[in-house]
């Protein structure tokens, strides 16, 4: 008998060229070489081109005086401010627009998303029309519309349109009263912090009590009461007062008050309206994703209406809503760069626009600008991963 040795020893012998390991490594080496060569090539070209234009490179320009005006900055800005301060001014303006835009877009988006699901024919149709119109028109066009056709067409200063609460709107922007908290107001902020801590403690205690005894503490009314009492006491005991400095129409312009330039108003308004349409669709999808059986299951467990929404429906809907919602927030932040087109001094306008033109440091400036947005994006996706991990369905 001949013993047939058909035991495999190692992977099948193939030609060296067909070995998947060898091939994988060689492809990757090739790709690396190609990418590195590409970068070397463009960097060399850039160096040659910059030398030909007599331009220097480096980040030292950040400590030079900017010498241009910024129409709206959150801190004192003069022509002698430095370029890194211009960067900071643009960055803070971008963040300001993002925060306000996210605030208004979320409120409007949730209202419209819920209205879209309303059983009321007129309300749901109005919401649908809003979503379909706003989503299908470019944001830049909408910003132009709000800025050039609406806000720039506002009456001149003398004929300002008066709105409630000492607010005025005219060609030069929106004028609102400026709150002037006095020094004692520190105590009120302290009381606010204390109230938040007390509410957290109370919520925790109420949950433990519910789990142990089954007795229910009205959490929400108690929280409201804590806030009113603690903050009110802080306000009264410290003798703090808040004065409002209203805008007053003088001969040529308003004095006092807080002046919001029309660019800012148009940008926040346009971004909120545009993003709200997308948020509304996200909210609708999230609510519809919770199957009707969940409502029935909650009912059959004997949960009350409020508990059913709070414990069963909303947590499941939020799991679907939050990831696209955060990416809408990121989109809004990125879209705030369109403020450059209507002259709002946000990051792209101040830095990638004016600063770049004045200094000519194209590569450094664009790299810094992109890095800012990259950071926003990484922070957002970090949050999303954390949230997804937290709410992930635990499967068997």
């Amino acid at each position, binding site marked *: 008998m001949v013993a047939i040795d058909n035991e495999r020893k190692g992977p099948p012998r193939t030609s060296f060229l067909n070995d998947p390991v060898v091939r*994988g490594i060689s*492809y*990757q080496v090739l*790709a*690396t070489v190609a*990418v590195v060569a590409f970068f070397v090539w*463009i960097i060399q*070209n*850039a160096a*040659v*081109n*910059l030398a*030909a234009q007599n331009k220097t490179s480096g980040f030292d320009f950040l400590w030079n005086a900017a010498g241009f005006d910024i129409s709206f900055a959150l801190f004192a800005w003069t022509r002698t401010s430095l370029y890194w301060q211009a960067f900071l001014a643009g960055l803070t303006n971008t963040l300001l627009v993002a925060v306000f835009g996210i605030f208004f877009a979320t409120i409007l988006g949730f209202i419209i998303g819920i209205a879209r699901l*309303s*059983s*009321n*024919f*007129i*309300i749901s149709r*109005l919401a649908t029309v809003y979503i*379909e*119109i706003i*989503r*299908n*028109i*470019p*944001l*830049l*066009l*909408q910003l*132009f*519309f709000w800025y*050039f*056709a609406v806000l720039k*067409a506002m009456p001149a200063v003398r004929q300002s349109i008066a709105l409630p609460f000492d607010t005025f709107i005219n060609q030069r922007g929106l004028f609102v009263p400026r709150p002037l908290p006095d020094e004692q107001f520190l105590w009120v902020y302290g009381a606010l912090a204390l109230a938040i801590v007390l509410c957290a403690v109370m919520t925790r205690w109420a949950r433990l009590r519910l789990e142990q005894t089954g007795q229910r503490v009205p959490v929400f009314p108690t929280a409201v009461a804590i806030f009113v009492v603690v903050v009110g006491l802080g306000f009264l005991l410290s003798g703090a007062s808040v004065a409002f400095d209203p805008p007053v129409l003088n001969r040529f312009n308003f004095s006092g008050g807080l002046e919001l330039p029309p660019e800012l108003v148009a940008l926040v308004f346009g971004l909120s309206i545009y993003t709200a349409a997308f948020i509304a669709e996200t909210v609708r999808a999230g609510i519809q994703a919770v199957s009707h059986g969940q409502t029935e299951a909650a009912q059959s467990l004997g949960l009350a209406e409020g508990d059913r929404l709070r414990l069963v429906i909303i947590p499941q809907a939020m799991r679907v809503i939050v990831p696209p919602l955060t990416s809408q927030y990121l989109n809004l932040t*990125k*879209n705030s*760069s*369109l403020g*450059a*087109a209507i002259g709002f001094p946000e990051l*792209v306008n101040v830095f*990638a*626009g004016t600063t*770049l033109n004045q200094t000519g440091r*194209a*590569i450094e400036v*664009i790299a810094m*600008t*992109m890095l800012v*947005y*990259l950071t*926003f*994006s*990484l922070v957002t996706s970090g949050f999303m991963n954390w949230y997804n991990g937290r709410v992930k369905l635990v499967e068997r």
Partner: protein
Amino acid sequence: MSSSSFVRQEIAPAEAPPSSNAGAGAWVRKNLFATPQDTILTLLGIAFLLWAVPPVFNFVVGHAVGPGGTVDECRAQDAGACWAYISARISFFIYGFYPIDQFWRPNIVMLGGAALLIPLMAPKLPFKRLNALLFFIVFPVVSYILLAGGAFGLESVPTERWGGLLVTLIISLVGIICSIPLGILLALGRQSKLPIIKTFCVAFIELWRAVPLITVLFMASIMLPLFVPQGVTVDKLLRALVAVTLFEAAYLAEVVRGGLQALPRGQYEAGDSLGLKYWQRMGLIILPQALKHVIPGIVNSFIALFKDTTLVSIVGIFDLLNTIQAGTSDINWSAPNQAITGYVFAAAVYWVFCFSMSRYSIFMERRLNTGHKR
């Protein structure tokens, strides 16, 4: 014994539903006035419509100056939209600064594009492979020769003179045509088992997706000339096209990745067990299925791209929005409503394109979903 009981032999005809449950009255009660809150909402909605619709209607139709009107009518006190201005400048909005006697060239391109695109989009029509080949490869080449000229006895028209809707369509079509293959390669690279290739693809995708298109356009218009060898000039429109393509490729890569991940593992394993090589497996088994599934996603990112083309106006290219914006400073037609009329017109054009594409996307989604949903 005769039966005293009566047994009905045939089914009694159904009675009409109670009048409270049928007809328009019931519909109104159910959908508009079901509860007191509902009634309040309905009344608020009607009040809003009464407040909002008449002024809009009067602006767009009622008091509007029709296409045959004059500028003096547009300057009247209560005049609405000035459609005469649009019809007078329509060729600027469609072709930009393209020479008037050469309009037949962009016309042929636009008609040819529509003639190729519509059969490609209709699922029932045959010859898809030939059609795709014509649309994705032959059409762009022929269009470029026809539009730019300088060959076959055609007068040369530099890209600076292209403009309006023509440029909007060119940028969005070139963007999508060039970014689909790039996006597919990036998606495959991202799924690759080779770590370095995967890292390159992930870095590329995440970098472009993180930054706003406007910074990419700035980068392309300012830095691209620095990156090419000295003496080579890059056309302004080409810079924008490169920016849009790279940007869109990153988004499409994520769309395609969704399709690749949605395929059951068995498909990959089946390809392996048939002894197919990587590209055969991808080209014959995986991609045909994955791409079919992501058609709605591709259309949706095309809608986003179509809207985003407006941003090229910031780097000085005369797309539709920029021609509208430039038109507002036309003093021959200066009227109180000149700017707003231009914006409404542009909004209507963009809306018609985007809305019909989104309907198509929904249609394809329904069509493709059948048989996959249990």
